[in-house]
């Protein structure tokens, strides 16, 4: 059985139907990516899974639990951590406090190995623990946002546009880190505008257009697909 099964969800902002029946499956251990242009519904999909938005129709299942009926704080407890769009780190708190908040739902008190994992993945974070998070560079903030999500020790990591606003060198670093995280056994659902990078690390992908899934295949096949190449990879 799939780790996460999203079945025909329709999500609205007021009267505007942002998602028109999205169906997604994520298997244990995969990196799955949602690509598409601005306004296609990628972020909305992720936020609906995280429980911040509620679908009017459809179900989201994780194991036997229907997430559409589960409050967002419980969803985190079930093992889904969400690194939201625009990073949204707590800018006025220290880096360490940001990490502590990531572990907010954890009832087991021994977080040493979790801190170590974050420090190994992001040595820069370790150097800046006492610094105010808002004073970090954009790349460091992104690393902190991912590290903070990891502190919840999730089984599924939802990453929303981790490459946004980063220099190309950092984009590469972030994507390499996502691969490392995946290699540690964590499943990743990745939303990206940078389709090229996303498809290069993902196992499978979904292409979204105005709230619908227009195409789904393995990442390799998508990267070869004529339509994808034209529309999202900027090739003629």
């Amino acid at each position, binding site marked *: 059985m799939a780790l996460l099964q999203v079945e025909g969800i329709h999500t609205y902002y007021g009267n505007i139907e942002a998602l028109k029946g999205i169906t997604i499956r994520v298997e244990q251990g995969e990196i799955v990516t949602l690509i598409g242009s601005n306004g296609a519904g990628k972020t909305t999909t992720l936020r609906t899974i995280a429980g911040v938005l509620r679908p009017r129709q459809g179900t989201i299942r994780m194991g036997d639990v229907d997430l559409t009926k589960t409050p967002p704080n419980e969803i985190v407890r079930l093992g889904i951590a969400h690194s939201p769009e625009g990073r949204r780190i707590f800018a*006025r*708190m220290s880096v360490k406090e940001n990490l502590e908040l990531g572990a907010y739902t954890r009832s087991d008190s021994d977080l040493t190995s979790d801190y170590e994992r974050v420090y190994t993945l992001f040595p820069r974070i370790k150097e800046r623990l006492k610094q105010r998070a808002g004073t970090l560079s954009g790349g460091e903030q992104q690393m902190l946002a991912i590290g903070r999500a990891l502190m919840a020790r999730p089984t599924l990591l939802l990453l929303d546009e981790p490459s946004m606003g980063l220099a190309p060198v950092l984009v590469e670093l972030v994507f390499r880190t996502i691969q490392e995280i995946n290699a540690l056994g964590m499943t990743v659902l990745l939303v990206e505008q940078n389709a090229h990078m996303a498809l290069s690390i993902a196992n499978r992908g979904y292409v979204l257009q105005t709230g619908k899934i227009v195409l789904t295949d393995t990442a390799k096949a998508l990267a070869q697909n004529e339509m994808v190449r034209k529309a999202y990879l900027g090739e003629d």
Partner: protein
Amino acid sequence: MKRPTLGWWYTTTGGARSRRVWVTVGGIALALAFPIIDGFLGLGWEAKAVPIALFIILALGLNVVVGFAGLLDLGYAAFFAIGAYSMAFLTSPQSPIPWVAQGNQVNFFLAMFISAGVAAVFGVILGAPTLRLRGDYLAIVTLGFGEIVPLVIKNTPEVTKGTQGMNPIGYPQIPGVVFGASPIPWYYLIVAVLLLSVVITSRLRISRIGRAWAAMREDEVAAASMGINLVTTKLFAFSLGASFSGFAGTIWASYLQVIAPEQFRFDVSIFVLVMIILGGLGNIGGVIAGGLILGGIDRILFDWISGIVHGVGSAINNDDLRLMDVSRSRQLIFGIALVFMMLVRPEGLFPSARRKAELHAAEELGEPAAEQERAILVEVEE
């Protein structure tokens, strides 16, 4: 990580920590020795110290709601009233509860905790439907609640004795101590509750829930992503603040021996709010300082100025000056003080580091942080 048992100086180290320890120890010593010092200097401020200390308890409670959790509560006096009336219901011969009215008055200390619980329950009743509102809307609802409670008390004379007020009210019974006209036993009772309040609120600030409040204040969306349940976290702050207010209300009722709806008007809520804003939102030491300063101005300085004005009035034979009561202008004076503070030092006299950072984010962090700030606002609009 190991945390010290008293959260007070947890966040500081080295010189700042030892300074804080000394201020704390000195403050406690001064508070305990105050009646002796007062007697020695012949100031006669004991009776004035009682309401000042009591209002500091209120300020500490409101600081949990406004300073820690960032929920603007403009009807805080309502819970003060609920605590006071619960005390009266449980201990007054005029109680509407027949069993109590027949002479079975509840023990003062037990009634104190029950009343604080009642106030907390009202906090939940008001908070549960309204805490989904944000910012200004919450302020408006609490403002309304603050108006409704005294009005209901006023208009249900069969239960609350209306404007006539309830009297007498039970008082503490400790062998060998007389809680009567002398303010000194009251003073020590209030200082004890005050110290307890300081310990509780300073522990809360560094606790898990305290961190959740700080996160929520900074960015609700991100806080929710961390798995913080926004509704229950806010509700907890709100009802905890209400229980502090209720607690203070019980002592106030017992000390005055008569309570009437006029004592719990809007200006009480504002007075407490001004205390914490002036002193420094979120910082316990600052809140106490703000309470001392405003309480001192209100209870001591105004009297003193009035005396001088009356003296001048007599000397130059001016009736307007001779009969002028400066404390009547307190609203005006505190209003001016608040506007002035907002302009020159919005974080208060003794701000918490975090508040200061919040108010000066753009200068300190540069554009990206201010940008994030705007993003938060956009999110709120949605």
